[in-house]
């Protein structure tokens, strides 16, 4: 369990990135921080592994204030995946995955063997093990990034817009992979994105952020869609327009579902409970 206790962060240049932010991120769930740029979502994420230290307030992992932990040791126990993969360009794929175990003193042979298994886990061909990051596609690099994040079998996995720089088709593929992985691995995942669709797809708990790290609403995807706290959230999740607002039309003998623009969204199948209409 990760807990933010009235955390604020003012950067040296004076910008207030996060203001009095409190939140509990439950264990073994995926919490998605979603907001536009300037919402402080990445700053919040980086507070969890002390890449950023709060100006006031504290962050606790399983009840322990992380300010008391040495940052380097803390980071080695937390998986981190970033947008541009952040791989070391002069090391092979395998050595990149094995980076953190080697830092922690795992014998080289062992670390490499484990890394090979991780390539399987993230759906990468073992033949790529000896390639350099620059020789991989963007999607493959991100998979290596995920494998590196998982290399020390961390309880917590931090993901900072990990699929932001790949094309839409690859992104969809990677998102599905992550859903599958999380089913198997059951980590506490903290995921940052500006894409609400991605948040709905991956998140158990979604945090919608306004500017300056203020929480607009926290809840499950269904909560946010069905009961947006205000217009900001409604507009952000798109509850007020397009294909989020569906209604049923009678078409001959069948019920078809149509969105607010009148475009056909699907066919109503089975007997849904009355209340859901």
């Amino acid at each position, binding site marked *: 369990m990760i807990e933010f206790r009235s955390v604020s962060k003012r950067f040296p240049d004076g910008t207030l990135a996060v203001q009095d932010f409190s939140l509990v991120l439950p264990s073994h769930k995926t919490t998605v921080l979603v907001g536009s740029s300037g919402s402080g979502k990445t700053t919040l994420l980086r507070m969890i592994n002390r890449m950023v230290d709060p100006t006031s307030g504290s962050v606790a992992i399983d009840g322990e204030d992380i300010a008391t932990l040495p940052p380097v040791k803390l*980071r080695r126990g937390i998986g*981190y995946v970033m947008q*541009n*993969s952040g791989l*070391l*360009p002069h090391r092979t794929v395998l050595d990149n995955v094995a980076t953190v175990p080697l*830092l922690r003193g795992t014998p080289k042979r062992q670390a490499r063997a484990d890394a090979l298994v991780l390539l399987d886990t993230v759906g990468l061909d073992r033949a790529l093990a000896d390639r*350099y*990051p620059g020789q991989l*596609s963007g999607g493959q690099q991100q998979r290596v990034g995920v494998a590196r994040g998982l290399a020390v079998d961390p309880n917590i996995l931090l993901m900072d817009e990990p699929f932001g720089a790949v094309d839409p088709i690859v992104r969809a593929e990677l998102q599905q992979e992550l859903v599958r992985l999380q089913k198997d691995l059951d980590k506490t995942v903290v995921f940052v994105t500006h894409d609400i669709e991605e948040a709905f797809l991956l998140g158990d708990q979604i945090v919608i952020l306004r500017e300056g790290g203020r929480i607009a609403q926290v809840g499950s995807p269904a909560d946010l869609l069905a009961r947006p706290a205000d217009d900001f959230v409604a507009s952000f999740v798109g509850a007020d327009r397009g294909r989020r607002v569906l209604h049923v039309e009678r078409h001959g003998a069948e019920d078809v579902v149509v969105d607010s623009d009148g475009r056909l969204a699907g066919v109503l199948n089975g007997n849904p409970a009355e209340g859901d209409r």
Partner: protein
Amino acid sequence: MNLFADAVNWILEPANYVGSNAIPLRLAQHLVFTLVTLVMASAIAIPLGYLIGHTGRGRGLAVTTSGGLRAIPTLGLLTLVALWVGIGVVAPYVALTVLAIPPILAGAYTGFEAIDRRTVDAARAVGMSELQIVQKVEVPLGLPLLIGGLRSATLQVIATATLAAYVADLGLGRYLFAGLKTRDYAEMLGGSMLVILLALALEGIFALIQRFVVPRGVSGRVGGRAPGTTDSTPVSHSLRTEDPTVAR
């Protein structure tokens, strides 16, 4: 072309291979002097450059000082130091170490600066200590530009060591000044050709070294980069072997 024939004859003349003025001896002096100067300058410039490159502090000062140092005419510095410490090898050593520092310093810190900040950030985020970031990320990735700086410094020192013969009994430059005094053009030209050959040979060696120190995976020779991989582009761009900072 007669002049060159005379110069070549002078170079091949067996009498020039014995005694205290022998060509091999002068060549060795020139090389040892260059090497020692480079080692001394590197001992100062590399740690300092790494510190500047890693912390990002003191860069403005380094740029200004280096720029100022480079505008100072070498001959002036040589003669001035020679007047202070007397005729001998000390003056050239001091003057040339000072002159060799700026290119090495620049090579060291620009090597670090050219690394994609996100690569360093990621290394820190996965739990590398600052020392490990320097050792495992910044030093290997910054090596090509450092070697470029050393290459500039070497050519600079080889050249200035020739001039140093004006104030000290040292190196191949002696032939130039001795020939000038006795109006022996074959000696002047022969000595000049030797220095030029030495400089070009070292230039060639450094060109080869630079090919080999580009870390594998960032040389751009390891095959095409897939679309959407924007991350490594700045690094590989700045590490191009034909980068103007490294080739002179």
